[in-house]
């Protein structure tokens, strides 16, 4: 009886899993057919942001360390990729060597920038990390003289796309009788890395390390008195988060072919933090959902110009302005009506229910 039941359960789980996999595989084609090519590109970007948000989620969501300079690690990953795989230094190393290097350097900087902040908490930590994020950006902006390392504000151009042997991921390819464009292929590459990041996040959450992070978030003194080396575990959280950021940075550089310090400003850090907070802090499905919604929503709001023209015959408010206004309204509405996030973990939902009840 029970074995039949559990068999049924495994079967339905595999069915869900299969449907999800099929949906994710077909998604770029459905989006291409329904919304146009530019939305497939957005899908690629959304996957990048999922990786970034999951990385920051380790620092902010699990360990409870409010980090406002997270974009620095994204930038480092991107610049490492650009340095080692573009005409800038004349190096053209393969992506499978460059991506891990970028992630590793980002992790190292995660530890270096994390170490001085170990005694800080809350607002103070946020301000210091914000400063570190800006320092990295300003360095990138100014390291073009006397030795040209970053090419300054002009950024680095002609970055190599991801290549496997002679297979160039940025070109269109005919496979199995279908034509796959670069952005379609990029989608699958990013999906692969995103799934890896999700997998690592899930495994860490349900482990000795993940529990220690949450314990530090809940009560740092009690955590230390319960035998947790809070210094090492906080540094580990910074390093893990930075690793994901660096990985996403490398993928971003290969995808865009061009990077400049402009792409890594404070607004990016805040956007990624918003994704976590809106989706549901510390809850993997929530963070993924938040990242996808906040990547796609601003783009969808660009259509407000068309709506106005259809409705009133002319455009009253510039869609670029209206877009930010509506975006702000949406954020405020979520915080008012779903303070624990759009998809909070059952744990947080209960907490907010308790607070109100």
């Amino acid at each position, binding site marked *: 009886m029970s074995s039949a039941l559990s068999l049924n359960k495994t079967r339905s789980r595999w069915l869900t899993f299969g449907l999800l996999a099929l949906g994710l595989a077909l998604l770029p084609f459905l989006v291409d057919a329904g919304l146009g090519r530019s939305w497939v590109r957005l899908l690629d970007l959304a996957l990048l942001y999922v990786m970034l948000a999951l990385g920051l989620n380790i620092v902010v969501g699990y360990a409870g360390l409010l980090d406002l300079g997270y974009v620095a690690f994204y930038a480092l990953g991107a610049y490492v990729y650009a340095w080692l795989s573009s005409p800038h230094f004349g190096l053209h190393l393969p992506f499978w060597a460059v991506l891990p290097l970028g992630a590793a350097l980002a992790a190292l900087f995660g530890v270096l920038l994390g170490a001085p902040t170990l005694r800080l908490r809350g607002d103070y930590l946020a301000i210091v990390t914000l400063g570190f994020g800006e320092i990295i950006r300003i360095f990138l902006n100014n390291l073009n003289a006397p030795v040209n390392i970053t090419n300054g504000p002009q950024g680095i151009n002609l970055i190599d796309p991801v290549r496997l042997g002679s297979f160039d991921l940025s070109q269109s390819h005919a496979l199995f009788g279908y034509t796959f464009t670069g952005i379609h292929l990029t989608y699958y590459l990013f999906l692969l890395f995103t799934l890896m990041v999700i*997998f*690592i996040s899930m*495994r*860490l959450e349900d*482990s*000795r*390390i*993940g*529990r*220690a992070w*949450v*314990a530090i978030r*809940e*009560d740092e*003194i*009690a*955590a*230390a*008195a*319960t*035998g*947790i*080396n*809070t210094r090492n575990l906080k540094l*580990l959280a910074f390093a*893990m988060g930075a690793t994901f950021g660096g990985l996403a940075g490398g993928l971003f550089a290969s995808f865009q072919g061009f990077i400049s310090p402009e792409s890594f400003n404070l607004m990016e850090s805040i956007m990624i933090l918003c994704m976590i907070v809106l989706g549901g802090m510390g809850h993997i499905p929530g963070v993924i959902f938040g990242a996808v919604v906040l990547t796609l929503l601003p783009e969808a709001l660009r259509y407000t110009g068309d709506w106005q023209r259809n409705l009133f015959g002319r455009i009253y408010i510039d869609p670029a302005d209206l877009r930010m206004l509506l975006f702000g309204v949406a954020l405020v509405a979520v915080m008012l009506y779903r303070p624990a996030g759009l998809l909070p973990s059952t*744990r*947080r939902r*209960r*907490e907010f229910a*308790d607070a109100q009840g």
Partner: protein
Amino acid sequence: MSAPKAAPSPSGKPDAGSTPLLTVSGVNKAFGGLQALSDISLQVHTGEIFGLIGPNGAGKTTLFNALTGLYSIDRGEIRLNGQRIEGRKPHQVLCAGLARTFQNIRLFAEMTALENVLVGRHARTSSGVVGAVLRLPGTRREEADSRERAHALLKRVGIAQHAHHLAKNLPYGDQRRLEIARALATEPRLLALDEPAAGMNPAERAALRELLLQLQSDGLTLLLIEHDVKLVMGLCTRLAVLDYGVKIAEGTPDVVSRDPKVIAAYLGDETL
């Protein structure tokens, strides 16, 4: 240790052959101009329940914080089982075998009772990131063992039914028990309890008393801050009394309760 010792030995001296587990000698701690601890010295012997009492603000919790590495001390020496532990970080003190609970319960509120106890296993386990991500056989074994021990500890302190409830939703008395279970999960040699009976009703106190005696009979040494005089007198092998950061008396409950200095500290000194 074999049988639970409900009554203190009449001599007031620790049993023959018992060794000092915790030795505090000449510990000083000042906060600005306030001397919170002056030259505190005491010894806790293996297997005993040692009580620490004194009026509010006497420095009991300060001494606990100094022992467990939360405060650094200005002068003095603290040895646990012969090892010096003063100046060490809290997690290092814990690894040396001294676990504690807090006066104002400090649980991981958003974690379940089981997870709280699992955090207690942290210091005695070693899986890292790679083990966790790949679920290596060693990690799985360690995790299964931790869970088994955690469930056993919850059962032991009598809150097995709350294993999957959030810590903050537990009744007050059970939260205190959970804190003890979490401390026990770290496999301490000495367990320091800061007012474990505070806020408990008589039935809960009686159950706590039973639990502490059981722990003692299992070979654990206990250091206890407590205000409930009845509990302390019935439970402790020996006591030390603090007042204004000074140790004013030490000995068996009988001796201490007759000490004029102790009476003066609690009831006020008429000569002043």
